[in-house]
């Protein structure tokens, strides 16, 4: 059966739907929903019977198809209150299919380009090139933030899980504030809490600044003094340079 060959090469429910439309030589702007839904569900059954992993998205689209089918069975909506001229219930699905089809076309045109190391080749690296590369440390690589977070994950994978390793954007915002405070204290030796706040008078700015100061005190990196209740809080580097 040609079915089996096709099954594992669908890139998702939209792909399967496009395949059925093409197979039945259907006009994409006028999809016979009953027919397509029936064939679509038959494919899902077959995939299940073959124990193929069925991504949840396939079921979501099945539900959408059934919903559209039921809406088409109802008499044309007389939505005079909303002023809408009873839109074709298939419209959104058609739009989605057309968009996906365009990107499938884009993928094909990308694939058809002359690819480096498949269709075109650059000069082979010579022994000299390799010598130069080795001189500057073993196998250096160019990196972006993705490589950085991957490296971090690799390292901590081997650590004691009880380590406090929760890293989220809030924590990094706090770190950002800590660095700023240390930079400013290194420049001016002492600062008051108000001076540190500067223009940051929003709630988030105040909270982060306060938390950053607590963290720095805990780390014994700064010292804080207050001349009396409600007096200005003065901050100093714990260790003078």
């Amino acid at each position, binding site marked *: 059966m040609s079915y089996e060959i096709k099954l594992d090469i669908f890139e998702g*429910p*939209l792909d399967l739907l496009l395949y059925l439309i093409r197979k039945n030589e259907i006009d994409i702007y006028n999809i016979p929903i009953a027919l397509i839904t029936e064939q679509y569900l038959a494919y899902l059954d077959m995939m299940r019977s073959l124990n193929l992993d069925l*991504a949840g998205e396939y079921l979501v689209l099945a539900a959408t198809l059934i919903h559209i089918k039921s809406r088409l069975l109802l008499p044309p909506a007389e939505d005079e209150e909303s002023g809408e001229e009873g839109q074709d219930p298939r419209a959104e699905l058609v739009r989605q299919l057309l968009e996906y089809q365009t990107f499938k076309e*884009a993928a094909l045109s990308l694939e058809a380009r002359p690819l480096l190391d498949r269709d075109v080749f650059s000069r082979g690296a010579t022994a000299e*090139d390799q010598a130069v590369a080795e001189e500057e440390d073993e196998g250096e690589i160019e990196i972006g933030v993705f490589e950085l977070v991957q490296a971090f994950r690799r390292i901590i994978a081997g650590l004691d899980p009880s380590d406090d390793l929760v890293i989220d954007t809030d924590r990094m915002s706090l770190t950002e504030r800590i660095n700023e405070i240390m930079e400013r204290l290194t420049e001016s030796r002492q600062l008051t809490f108000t001076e540190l706040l500067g223009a940051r008078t929003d709630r988030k700015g105040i909270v982060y600044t306060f938390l950053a100061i607590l963290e720095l005190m805990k780390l014994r990196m700064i010292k804080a003094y207050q001349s009396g209740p409600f007096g200005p809080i003065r901050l100093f580097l714990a260790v003078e340079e």
Partner: protein
Amino acid sequence: MEEKMAIIEAIVFASESPLTAERIAEMIPDAQKRDISAILQRLVQEHDARGGGFRLAEVAGGFQFRTREDMAPWIRKLKATRPSMLSPAAIETLAVVAYRQPLVKSEIDRIRGVDASGALKGLLEKKLVRIVGRKDVPGKPIIYGTTRKFLEVFNLRDLSELPTLRELKDLQE
């Protein structure tokens, strides 16, 4: 050949990645970027006119010597190893990123109708896609875009060399 032209040719030839006129200008003290661009164009023409086994190609905003496309069957014989190919899911995902960048992952998922996590991770590891930043909306999702290596591998001068989505759509009618 004029000396300055030979120097530029040597530098481009020796480089492992495409070189821009700007970078070459940094290496040749008394040269203007404009002159270098003009010389590079003359070199492109000269090599095309020679009709040899390789040509000077304009890729990723720079210049690199590359074999002629029709020489591929012969080079493949030389290189015993098969190049690692991208899966259809990876190419689809790459196409969406290339045309819609900068974009967040949920947008890719929506267009393709499936979760793009695996494909996206593979493209990040292959350095064809990169993290560009975060979007300023609740949850601050990561924004993705294509890399310079994407242009190099797909033999593109820049992104504008890709056919437009409209052109691709017309192709289907």
